[in-house]
Every structure is written in structure tokens, then in C-alpha cells.
């Protein structure tokens, strides 16, 4: 029978048992001298009660000392362990030992105020200290790096340094692979071939760390495969590890939530043994001290299940932004929150030039475009002018210009060219007012493809049978990527009766056909001119040549076109960048990476960035491998400007969802995997099959302390 303590450091509390003695010795009150005539009676009374008083005093003393000592011992959590039959079956003698220390994310779980990793490290060091002088040892830290171990040696100091220097990381670790590496290390030394092989695994027994569907590690010897002895030290001591985690976070634009509205979906999982109701979920926007709570919600979690919670949030302004969804902090804090860095489309100022105005609104050339752009959830703010008024407009005030069936821009053509060259966007649609040849002369430099002739596929009155339809749509193009699933029907069902055929593009002015008609003629063509973009739609923007304006796809398409042309569609999501994965940081020309600000707010300078694997990526960006989950911010220095944290470069890192699943393996399952009770045992678990059986002495001590408390009260009364 061995007595062990879960929290041996708390044994200092035993000193409290000396308090009653100290009080008795040092704080004894001096008796007050008082003349009293009936002193004989006091003497007689004392003689009669002295024995009883002395016994009472001793009992009182004992009760007080016992109360403090029992409470202090109970806090240290003593356990009496009786080695079981399996322990007896394991051969005794010199063994080569490999100690595997689990440093995966779930080991950050705090049980009774202490991280499981620290307990496991103490277990591993204890196992090392228990080895005999003739037993060689090695250690494997099962964490971020590929598991590897030196052959067992007698340099205990080196093994201790490996264990003491180990750090728990936030990612996943494959314990099966680590035990395999340990067994290979044990088998690698021919000099120790005769020694029995022993593997000690200090872990939390979470099921996700093991792959029990592969053969157990074994040592090939002259007498065939030999299974090593395996001792699993359960750092959780048999306790369940309930855990709530945000396992996924995604944000999609949601026009229903208003301009810059997003639908944020968080997946929350529970590895708890019981269902939880009304778990608080908090959505905050912003990073660092400026972060503010946007939404508080509640979720009901089934036992061991995952639920998805959708929240709508509209950003007050466009640009780079950070979102964070957090649960109340629990024992495994690293997965209680997830962050997401994204770029919210900023407001687009659009000038819509109406080439064929009409007093009847729905016959107006710009009616449908303007309605689409000015809808309540639109990030676009359109300004409508007719072709004559274009000459008086200052284009510098706009991000995008829509030329809708404009016969001629006249002298404004040169300014339009400059506007596009400097980063502006231009949308062109044609119609009855447009002469393709004149257009080619006037706006030739801007057109992605030169216009040729007007083609009539059918007359609007002839029915839809011969009308042209969109085909070969570049669905992955940012401007069209919103059309997914059934939404694509809204685009593919568009009937176009007349359109302008385009000639192949000239050299040096490449054009991308985003959609073409079913006869192969380009329908939607993108071209780049300088820093700007041009989109050409070869049909009309009203219902004269096509029925697109009355299709459901028209409104989102126009808004997306405006966003794309203004360069405001670069939505960026940190999808599934898990701890340990490489992150590419793309700096603008002239920018220099200074440091990274981690989730803890600490700045990682050059030396630390090198340890994080900072290097050149294949596509020109800088790559780094962050190992802490949370929001990372990038500090850069640009030419002529000081150092600053660049919001557009912020990125989030998520913990590995496998580490959030803290459901534990049954000890007998693990011992069975390693060859049964004759080869393996799990220590530190009350339910260990075939292993030691332990009695939680602390509960007895607590009962004793309570009894002492009542006895003390009784004696005082």
C-alpha cells in the first residue's frame, strides 16, 4: 500500500496544524490577579474537576489540531494505492525505459487549478527518478514536432532536461506515433537487446490522441515480435474532463443584416457528460482593448454534441475587421474563443450615367441598375446623371462609373481613361443608342474587347425559345461567386434577345470573359487598365434587349460588379488556419515586417519569428508558423512611415478541434490495445482495470475534519 498525493506541494498546509500549539505557547493570556475570599472553594472545585478539565483540554487541543491537519491533508488529495495483479505480473528486473510525455493541446486542461501537462510532467519525472541505476532511459515529447527519440542512455540529466524543457502546445499530437517512436528508440540499441523494454506514457487519456486501429508497437527480436511493457500514467487521475469549445467560426455576407451585414456561424461542441442549457455565447468585434461586445446569445448543448449558432452582425464601416466568438472560460481555455479576421467591403460611390432616359420609369435605361445599387442593404451609393450631365461631373468623387447605353462620352473619354488608369472602375452596357464603331473609336482604349456588330437572337415578342442564354459562367470569379446552388438558376435563366458581338481583344490588353452566350459570343468581359478594372456587358441594362433586369440575379450581380470594380470585394476569411499550419503574410511593396503581436498581446521580434519558421513563401509572401491560437496582428514598417499594426494583415489561428474533444479512453481499452493486462497498466485511475486500486483518502479526511469541528464546538459549549 502506497500513499500518494495529487498536490504534494500543498502539504505545506500541514504547518497549520501547529497553529493551536503556537497560540497556546505564544499567545497565552496572563491571568489577572484577583483577591477572592472563597479560595478554598476554588481549590476544592479544581481538585474535583481537574481530571475532567485536563481530559477536555487535551481533547480540545486534539480536535483543533486534527481539524487543521485533516483539512490540509485533504487539500493535498492523498490516495492509498494498492498495486494489483497486473503490476505483480510485470517482470521485475533492469529495463530500458522510454518516457513519452503528451504535450498536446488537451494537456492544457486545468484540473483542480493545475494544468494536466504539469501533472504529467511530474509523473514522467517521477517515473524517471524511480528507475534503477542499471536501467537506461530516453524521453519523447509528443507535441508539435515529429516524434523522435534518442536511444536509451544512462545520462539521466539529459532525459530530465528534455522533460523539464518540454512545452505544451495548442495543437494535436499523435500518441500512437509517439509511442511507436519510443519503441523504435528502445529497439535501436543493440547493446541493450537483452534488456526488457518499458514505455511510460504520461497523458490525459483523451481518445482523440490515440489511433487504436493500427497495430500496437512491437519490437522485432530474434524470437519474433515482442510487445513492450507499457505503463500509462493518467494525469487526470480518472476524473472526467468536461469541455465546451468553439470548434468553428465562419462569416458570410448577409444582405438581410444591412450594408456590411454578415451572418456569423459558430459551431460549439460539448465534450461534457451531460447536456448544458443556456450556455452564454458572446460575439465581440474589434481587437485588443478596443474590442466591444456586439451580441450576447445562449445555446443549448446536447451531451457530447455540437450545435451551430448563427448570429447576424452589421459592421459600422468597411475595411479590415476582427470578430471573436467566446464561451465562458472553462478548464480548457484555449478553445473557448475563436477569432476571425476579415475585410469588410467598404462603401462604393457609383456614378450611373443614363444614356436613354425616359419619363416612364421602368423604361428608363438606368432604372433597374440604380434600383439595384440603391437597395437598402447595398454597399453602393449611386448618383444618377444623364449623358449630357456627365461632362460636368468630377470623376474623382466616384469609385465606379456605370455607362449605360451612352451614345458618346465626348471629351470626357480622356478623363475616363485617366480615371480607370488610376484605379477607378468602369461598367459598360450597350443598347440602341450605342454605335459599336463609334464606341470603338471613342472608348477603344477602355473596352476589354472591341465591339463589332449587333446581333439579334430573337425578338422579345417571339417567345423565349430562340433567346440567347448565359453559358460558361466563371462562377469562381469574385463578382459572381455569390451565385451558388439554386441561385445560379437566376443567372442561367436570363434570356437575351439582342447583344453586340465583340472582336477578340488586342495584344497587350488581355480580357477575361466571365460569361458568354450559348452561341459563344462574350456576354460579360473583364479587362484591366492600369490600376483599374472595366466590365463590359454586351447587352442592355434595361429590358430592351434582355430580361436580366427583372431576374433575381440582377440585383446581387450589379452590387457585386460595383464592389468588384471598386476593388472592395476582397473579402478574406481565415478558414481553418489551424495551430501549426503555415500562414502567408503578403506585404505591399515598400513594407517590411517588424514583428507579430500574439493573442497574448506580446510582441514577437525577429528572433522569435525565426523560431516560428519565418521564411520566404513560394509565391513571394512571408510564411510563419504560429503555435498559439487566437488573433495575430502584424506590425510593419513602410517607407516614409513609422511602424504600425496593419489591420489588413491580421489573421486568426484556431486550436485543433481534435484537442477540444476531451472524451477519455477507457483504461481497459488502452491496456487491451497494448497487449492486455500482462503487458500494460494504467496508473492513477480509480477505474483502472487490472491496475492498482486506489482509495480517495481525502474524503475520509474531510469527514474527519468535520467531525473534529463538531467535537471542538461541543467541547467549547
Amino acid at each position, binding site marked *: 500500500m502506497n500513499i500518494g498525493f495529487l498536490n504534494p506541494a500543498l502539504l505545506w498546509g500541514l504547518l497549520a496544524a501547529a497553529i493551536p500549539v503556537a497560540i497556546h505557547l505564544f499567545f497565552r493570556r496572563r*491571568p489577572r*490577579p484577583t483577591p477572592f475570599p*472563597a479560595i478554598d472553594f476554588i481549590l476544592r472545585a479544581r481538585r474535583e474537576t481537574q481530571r475532567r478539565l485536563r481530559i477536555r483540554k487535551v481533547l480540545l487541543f486534539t480536535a483543533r489540531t486534527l481539524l487543521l491537519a485533516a483539512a490540509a491533508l485533504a487539500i493535498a488529495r492523498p490516495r492509498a494505492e494498492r498495486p494489483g495483479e497486473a503490476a505483480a505480473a510485470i517482470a521485475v528486473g533492469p529495463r530500458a525505459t522510454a518516457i513519452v510525455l503528451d504535450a498536446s493541446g488537451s494537456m492544457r486542461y486545468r484540473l483542480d487549478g493545475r494544468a494536466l501537462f504539469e501533472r504529467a510532467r511530474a509523473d514522467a519525472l517521477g517515473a524517471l527518478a524511480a528507475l534503477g541505476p542499471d536501467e537506461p532511459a530516453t524521453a519523447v515529447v509528443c507535441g508539435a514536432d515529429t516524434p523522435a527519440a534518442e536511444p536509451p542512455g544512462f545520462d539521466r540529466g539529459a532525459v530530465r532536461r528534455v522533460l523539464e524543457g518540454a512545452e505544451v502546445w495548442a495543437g494535436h499530437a499523435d500518441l500512437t506515433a509517439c509511442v511507436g517512436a519510443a519503441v523504435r528508440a528502445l529497439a535501436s540499441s543493440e547493446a541493450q537487446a537483452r534488456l526488457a523494454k518499458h514505455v511510460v506514457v504520461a497523458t490525459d487519456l483523451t481518445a482523440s490522441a490515440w489511433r487504436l486501429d493500427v497495430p500496437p508497437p512491437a519490437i522485432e527480436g530474434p524470437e519474433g515480435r515482442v510487445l513492450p511493457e507499457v505503463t500509462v500514467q493518467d494525469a487526470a487521475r480518472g476524473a472526467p474532463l468536461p469541455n465546451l469549445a468553439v470548434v468553428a467560426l465562419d462569416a458570410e455576407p448577409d444582405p438581410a443584416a444591412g450594408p456590411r451585414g454578415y451572418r456569423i456561424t459558430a459551431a460549439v461542441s460539448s465534450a461534457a457528460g451531460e447536456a448544458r442549457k443556456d450556455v452564454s455565447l458572446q460575439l465581440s468585434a474589434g481587437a485588443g482593448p478596443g474590442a466591444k461586445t456586439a451580441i450576447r446569445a445562449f445555446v443549448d448543448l446536447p451531451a457530447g454534441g455540437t450545435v451551430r449558432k448563427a448570429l447576424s452582425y452589421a459592421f459600422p464601416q468597411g475595411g479590415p475587421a476582427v470578430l471573436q466568438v467566446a464561451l465562458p472560460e472553462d478548464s480548457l481555455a484555449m478553445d473557448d474563443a475563436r477569432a476571425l479576421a476579415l475585410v469588410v467591403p467598404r462603401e462604393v460611390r457609383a456614378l450611373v450615367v443614363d444614356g436613354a432616359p425616359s419619363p416612364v420609369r421602368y423604361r428608363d435605361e438606368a432604372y433597374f441598375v440604380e434600383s439595384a445599387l440603391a437597395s437598402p442593404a447595398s454597399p453602393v451609393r449611386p448618383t444618377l446623371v444623364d449623358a449630357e450631365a456627365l461632362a460636368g461631373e468630377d470623376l474623382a468623387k466616384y469609385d465606379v462609373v456605370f455607362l449605360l447605353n451612352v451614345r458618346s462620352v465626348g471629351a470626357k473619354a480622356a478623363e475616363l481613361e485617366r480615371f480607370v488608369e488610376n484605379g477607378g472602375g468602369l461598367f459598360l452596357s450597350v443598347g440602341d443608342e450605342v454605335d459599336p464603331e463609334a464606341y470603338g473609336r471613342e472608348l477603344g482604349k477602355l473596352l476589354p474587347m472591341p465591339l463589332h456588330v449587333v446581333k439579334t437572337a430573337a425578338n422579345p415578342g417571339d417567345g423565349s425559345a430562340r433567346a440567347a442564354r448565359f453559358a460558361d459562367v466563371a462562377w469562381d470569379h469574385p463578382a459572381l461567386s455569390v451565385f451558388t446552388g439554386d441561385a445560379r438558376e437566376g443567372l442561367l435563366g436570363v434570356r437575351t434577345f439582342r447583344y453586340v458581338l465583340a472582336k477578340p481583344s488586342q495584344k497587350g490588353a488581355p480580357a477575361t470573359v466571365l460569361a458568354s452566350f450559348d452561341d459563344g459570343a462574350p456576354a460579360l468581359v473583364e479587362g484591366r487598365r492600369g490600376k483599374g478594372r472595366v466590365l463590359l456587358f454586351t447587352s442592355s441594362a434595361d429590358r430592351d434587349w434582355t430580361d436580366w433586369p427583372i431576374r433575381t440575379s440582377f440585383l446581387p450581380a450589379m452590387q457585386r460588379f460595383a464592389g468588384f470594380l471598386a476593388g472592395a470585394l476582397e473579402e478574406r476569411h481565415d478558414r481553418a488556419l489551424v495551430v501549426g499550419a503555415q500562414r502567408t503574410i503578403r506585404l505591399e511593396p515598400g513594407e517590411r515586417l517588424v514583428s507579430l503581436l500574439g493573442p497574448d498581446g506580446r510582441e514577437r521580434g525577429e528572433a522569435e519569428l525565426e523560431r516560428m519558421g519565418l521564411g520566404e513563401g513560394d509565391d513571394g509572401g512571408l510564411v510563419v508558423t504560429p503555435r498559439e491560437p487566437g488573433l495575430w496582428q502584424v506590425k510593419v514598417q513602410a517607407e516614409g512611415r513609422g511602424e504600425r499594426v496593419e489591420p489588413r494583415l491580421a489573421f486568426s489561428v484556431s486550436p485543433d478541434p481534435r484537442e477540444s474533444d476531451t472524451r477519455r479512453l477507457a483504461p481497459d481499452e488502452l491496456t487491451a490495445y497494448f497487449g492486455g493486462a500482462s503487458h500494460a497498466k494504467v496508473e492513477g485511475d480509480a477505474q483502472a482495470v487490472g491496475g492498482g486500486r486506489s482509495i480517495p483518502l481525502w474524503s475520509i479526511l474531510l469527514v474527519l475534519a468535520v467531525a473534529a469541528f463538531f467535537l471542538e464546538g461541543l467541547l467549547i459549549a
Partner: protein
Amino acid sequence: MPDPKRPLLDPAVLAKLGTLKLRVRAVTEGILSGLHKSPHHGQSVEFAEHKEYSPGDEIRHIDWKAYGKFDKYYVKRFEQETNLRAYLVVDASGSMGYRGAPERLTKLEYASSLAASLGYLLVRQQDAAGLVLVQGHVAGAIPPRASASHLGPVVEALEAAKPEGETRLAAAVDWVIEHAPRRSSVIVFSDLFDRDDRIVKKLAQLGRRKHEVTIFHVLDPAELEFPFDDPTLFLSMEDERQVEAHGRDVRKGYLEVMQRWLEETKRTAAEADVDYALCRTDRPLDEVILPFLARRERSAA
């Protein structure tokens, strides 16, 4: 709490009166104002009853007026003249100097007030009162006399008495036996904390010599209730003994021992036909004196 009707009899009020004389005056005035129908109406000249003459009766006591009325001889009978001699034995040992609270009288002051008041009342009804002061031995004695002028020295002697020495009432018993030639009343004022456990029996010896013995057992409330809670070093008031005890620990035992002792003292007194009265020094003096006087009156009748 002083009695609003008799403020001068309350010990707390008496304690504020500087001298014993003032206290005696306050006590006796208080008592006399309460005796509206005093049983002390007759001295030896008071007529009591008529009795038919029989041979042997004094002829000079024949009531001739009654003979004129009834034609029979009737003899006048009078209250028998009693010239009582009372010895006031006051214990002035060290233990009598105790008071449990500063606002109370010491036991000696209380006993002195009692003795002096009784002395005054006795002298006022023509009885003789003397004083015996005991401090381990008889420290002073004033023979009994029935004159009012005699009361002055008694009060002065009581006032001058300082509590010291040990309690040894046997010395007083011996003194009274030696100096009281005829039947007397011996009134003892003491806490009875005598080394001799059988002191009450010793006092009862006086009864066998036809003396009438009364014990006023004067005790402080603190001695009866033991109100000590803290660790205390108890110092003897009569010798060098001292004992350290936690008040809370010994209270129960002390009260048991005290109760046993009081019961035994009372029982012994009753067996020996000794009049016994327990006097708490926080009780008004008339509560002690009036019952005593009433008892005396009953026994005289």
C-alpha cells in the same frame, strides 16, 4: 436598583454614605418609619391582662376597680420585663474586606451596618448591646449596656475596624462563654470562612449555655455566583495562598461546592437551634433586620 420607597436601605445608596453613623441613622430611620404598628409597644409597665386571684398572687396587683365592678378578685398581669443582653459578634477578618463590585459595600461594611443598626434598635428598647470584634482573635470588645450613650463607642469601634487576619470565630465563642455570666443573645456577623469546618457547631455550644445565637451569614453576590470567565489568579485575602484557574472551567465545580457548604451550614444551624440568615450584600438591610425582629418578637411571645 434602589427601592424607590426605601432608598436609604439600599446597600448601593448606603455605600455612598461616608460614615457608619450616617448609615445606621439611615437604616434605623428607614426601619422605624416602616414600623407603623410596632410590636414594641409595651415595656414592663404595660398592662397585659386580668387573672382571677389565686393564693400566692401578689396582693398589690389586685385590681380593686375590677373588684368593685365584678365582686371578684382579679390580678393585673403585666408584660414581663426583659432586659436583654446582646453581644454583637462582628467578624473583621481579611475575607470580610471583599466586595465583588466597586459600587457595593464590603462584607465588613455591610456587617457593621447591620450590627450597628441592630444595636441602635436594641438600645432604643432598653436592651443592652455589646460588641465583640474578631480578627483571628478577639481584637476588641465592648460590654453590653442599655444606654443610648453607649452606642457611640460601639459605632466608632465598628467604623475603625479594618479587615485583616484570619477568620477564627472560636475565639469569640470562648470570649462570650467567659464574659457572659447570664443568658444573652449572641448575634454573629460573619462570612463563616473559618479554618474550622465545625464553626457552626462551635457557635451552637453557646446555645447549650442558654445563650440565644443568631448567625447573619454575610456573603457577596460574587461569592455566590462566581462571575469569572477569564483566566484569573485568585489571591487569598487571609493568607499567602493563590490559585490560577480559568473562571469558566471551575465555575460549575465552585458553585456545586458552595451550594453544598451553604446547605450544610443551614442544616447544622437548624439542628443546633441556631437562628441563621443568609445576607447578600446587594440586598437592602431591612430585608434582613425586619424578619429578624419579627422572629424575635414571635419567640418572645
